[in-house]
């Protein structure tokens, strides 16, 4: 049992972060806080990928002539790092669009609090 607990400590940190992010996203009423929760959730997943790419006593995946590339144990697996570049970019793009949306919402309704927003939307019923 200790092996499982010790061996996976990287993953537990990631799970705690994930639960925090998800909690923030679902429960918080303010729209900006929801967005921050979303970002935490995305970063947690990125950390999850990276923590699965680690090998003991391995260097960064730049092939330096001294070590040579014969033995794969010397370098950590580079694939996850590439994938996570894409995930980071996707996170940035989504947040960018989300903040643009928030600006237009704020400009039209003057509030970013979900409950007030719903009331204000109710009273201008028309679909326009």
């Amino acid at each position, binding site marked *: 049992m200790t092996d499982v607990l010790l061996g996976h400590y990287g993953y537990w940190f990631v799970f705690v972060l*994930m639960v925090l992010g*998800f909690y923030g*996203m679902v429960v918080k009423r303010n*729209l900006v806080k*929801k*967005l921050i929760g*979303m970002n935490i*959730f*995305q970063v947690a*997943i990125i950390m*999850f*990928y990276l923590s*699965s790419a680690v090998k003991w006593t391995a260097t960064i995946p730049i092939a330096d002539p001294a070590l040579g590339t014969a033995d794969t144990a010397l370098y950590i697996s580079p694939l*996850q790092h590439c*994938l996570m570049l*894409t*995930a980071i970019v*996707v996170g940035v*793009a*989504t947040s960018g*669009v*989300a903040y643009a*949306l*928030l600006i*237009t*919402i704020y400009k*039209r*309704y003057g509030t970013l609090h979900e409950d007030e*927003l719903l009331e204000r*939307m109710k009273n*201008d019923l028309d*679909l*326009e």
Partner: protein
Amino acid sequence: MTWIWNNSPALPVVLLLPTAIAIPLFALIDRRLARALALAVSLTTAGLGVLNLAKVLAYGPVHYHLGGWPPPIGIEYVLDELSAFVLLVINTIAFLVLVHAKTPVERELPDAGKHVPYYAVAVLMLCGFNGIVVTGDFFNLYVWLEIASLSLYGLIAVGARKAPVAAFRYLILGTIGACFYLLGLGFLFTMTGTLNMADLKAILPAVAQEPAVAVGLGLIAAGMGLKMALFPLHGWLPDSYTYAPSASSALIAPLGTKVGAYVLVRVLFFIFGVGAATRAFPLTTLIGWLGAAGILYGSILAMAQRELKRMLAYSSIAQVGYIGLGIGLANPLGLIGAVLHVMNHAAMKALLFLVAGNFRTVLGHSDIGRFDGSVRRRMPWTTAAFAVGALSMIGIPPLAGFFSKWYLALGAVARGQWIFLAVVLVSSLLNAVYFFRVIERLYLAKSEAGENAPGTDAPPSMLVPVLVLAAALVGLGLFNAVIVNGVLERIVNAALF
């Protein structure tokens, strides 16, 4: 010519992308060019869809190594019957909707400067959908999924006053779905070490009994359920479809949910196989029950709606429930029903939303309460098309909608799920109720306005696609046997049960 033939799987995405980029650049010269470019490229992709389907039917699954690297190393495009079929459906429907989009875009997007980016984002969305359907690599699928979803958020957000709020809610839920997919993929990748679908299928037996694989599959299914708006995860759908401009809702409704359904079918039936998927947790039966609940929920709520587009949105939830039910049955007939319903529902929903667009453009509103006889006289063709679409949704035999319900019913009988069979039949009645309510108002209600109501039917650019879709519904219904035997049989025997 041979160059097109042997590069055909990658060509749809390879052509769509630069056109989406070129639209803002060319439009600096002339604004109308943006629309022409969008139409041209969606027509070529529709043509490529036909070519790809013919190629797959002739030679079986086609593999295309991007960047020249073999599968486990590089990314691979796999085009089998299922993806070629869905590809063709998506491109043809998108082309018809884009043809229709001329006046609604000008009418509902006041700022003339925004038409150009609107078409560019629409083409990017199409590029995203094509990318998802054709790819044979899980992570690549996530990248294209994200592109398609971002474009969806953008297309919805340009709508009415309340559109950004609906778009924001959709963004939050959509990103949760995408993150669940990524997390599930993370679990699977950590266990198997590969991202390629065929490769993963080979390694699965060695790893299948680990809880990580079950959790990974569950997460991917949850993510796709969110994208597909399966019953409990459909929160974003009603607002998004109603507040979006009618051109965008006509683009999103038929295509958006179908892609999520495609991925779910691909993962459950073609990678994991029903046996492996349900070992730790009866996933498919859960999806079946969620689908059934979705059908009832969607149909009942659709009856209560006063506004046509919102009613169609709730009926979309019901139709997605049908696909969920088909997947839940997990037998060949159920799968045929589900995949057939993907096509039928795409055509029907496109037709109904285009009709709603026509109503909003000509009459200025789409409230069911204010429909009456004068509408029928003013817009005879659109109302006739609406009648065809409604009848097909209910499932009247000659039309396409009937056959998918028929196969679902057969699947339910074969599986012995009497409750599912009852749900399919009851839902047809519910559909009948809320569609006849509208038809009755259109055809029978006396019109208060004068007999010769002013104004003519929608302009040709909006009317032609509607009529083409109505004719397509009838055609698909009649030639249903050809489609099923030709394409769907091969999909089913390729699936793992």
